[in-house]
């Protein structure tokens, strides 16, 4: 029986990137023997410097890249099409199809999630209210501001009502108002029972919402601990310098 108390679990996962330059191949460890688990219903924040392996971890969970060794479980099941139904993904920057309207993008994402037309329409209507996107949802995405794009990104992630929300640098590129709004949304979603797995390098923001933190350095999890207000920055710096 799959262990459904854990939303996400990585067991000894290693990912090696290889690059070929003419006759020379170089290898680089994206994550190295990484093991971590995220309990259901928590906000888990993965911290690390640039290139530490945060995005690689996210991509592994989303099955966008494949591990060399190890096992990745979502809701106790190996990653695949079934587990993706339980995941909503908010990417680091809003990468969209610029010539579609917001509504069309949401509709397309609903189709790709296997939702019926009726359910798609209902959910899009609900999200338009929840994320206040109704006044621009029929415009082409290329005309959106960064804030609008971020809200649309969140809307598409929530469309199929996933149990887990994976957010890769959700505050990236947002102004203080945008950051505050995003924080509110994350807290609301978490209180509605969703597990949040996020990556960030903005420690102050992570400290405000995260229940548990992991610190990555050169693809290895060097520290994992429950967040205690006021101590995250020093913990982080210590882990990064020492490890």
């Amino acid at each position: 029986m799959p262990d459904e108390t854990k939303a996400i679990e990585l067991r000894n996962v290693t990912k090696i990137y290889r690059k070929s330059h003419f006759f020379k191949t170089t290898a680089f460890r994206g994550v190295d023997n990484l093991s971590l688990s995220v309990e259901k219903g928590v906000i888990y924040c993965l911290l690390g410097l640039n290139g530490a392996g945060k995005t690689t971890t996210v991509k592994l969970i989303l099955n966008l890249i494949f591990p060399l060794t190890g096992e990745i479980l979502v809701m106790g099941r190996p990653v695949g099409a079934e587990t993706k139904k339980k995941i909503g993904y908010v990417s680091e920057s809003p990468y969209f199809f610029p010539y579609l309207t917001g509504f069309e993008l949401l509709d397309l994402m609903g189709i790709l999630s296997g939702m019926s037309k009726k359910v798609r329409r209902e959910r899009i209507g609900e999200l338009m209210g929840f994320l206040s996107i109704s006044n621009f949802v029929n415009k082409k995405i290329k005309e959106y501001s960064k804030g609008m794009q971020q809200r649309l990104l969140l809307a598409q992630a929530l469309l199929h009502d996933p149990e887990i929300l994976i957010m890769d640098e959700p505050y990236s590129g947002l102004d203080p108002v945008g950051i505050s709004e995003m924080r509110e949304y994350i807290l609301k979603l978490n209180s509605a029972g969703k597990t949040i797995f996020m990556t960030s390098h903005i420690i102050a923001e992570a400290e405000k919402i995260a229940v548990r933190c992991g610190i990555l350095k050169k693809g290895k999890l060097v520290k994992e601990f429950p967040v205690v207000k006021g101590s995250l920055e020093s913990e982080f710096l210590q882990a990064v310098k020492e490890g």
Partner: protein
Amino acid sequence: MKSVHNVSVYTLKENARSRSFSLSVIFVVFVFASAFLFSRLSEVVETRVIRDVGMGAIQFFSLLAALFFAIKVAFTEGANKTIYLPLSRPVKRWQYLSGRFLGIVAVVFLEILMMGALLTGLLLLKNAPLDGFYFLGYLFIFLKIVTITSVGILLSLVSTSFVSPFVFTFLIWITGHLFREFDYLIGKMPSLAVIFLKVAKWIIPNFTILNIPDYVEGRFFQAGGYLPAILYAVFYTAAVLVISCAIFEKKEF
């Protein structure tokens, strides 16, 4: 199959609104206009020149647009991470790629239909005699573009830059048009080169048998060859698409 259809519908919408599509349409209209000017230089063969240059322009700019779309789907969207959103959904990768491919095919069809209608209108204004071969020419232009689109997608999937699939697809486009020309050299080649050429003919799309617009008079191709030529394009495209889907399934983004 429903998701393949829906992805193709959205790909059609997206690409039909894109700058590449409108630019290619504008360029074709521009070429039509210049074909008119050009034909003034040779009033005696005016309609022939308008027809040849017009159909040539439709083919060339449809090729450019289709290539841009193919490279965008299979390379650019991976490089700029747009593909993360659809692939993080529970859709099968082969279904997504097939849907995108069919969407591009639909855009190309739309483009050829629009431009072909415009060119036909212009030719009728000039009282040009239009026969069945003329209209068959459009079908074969479409088949050529569909075939090269599948090759463009395959090359984009295995490329690490935007330029290389573009260049290699163009080289394949040229080579594919030269197979009948190569036949002439067969008697003058060493046997190993002949074998290489024969195998290359299976692997590289043979556009000489699809190049009906270049022989609109229909004297080069007996009617019995049309259906096999159409089926060739269909099966070749399907074979390339199967490899593309297999690569796409294993591709890391």
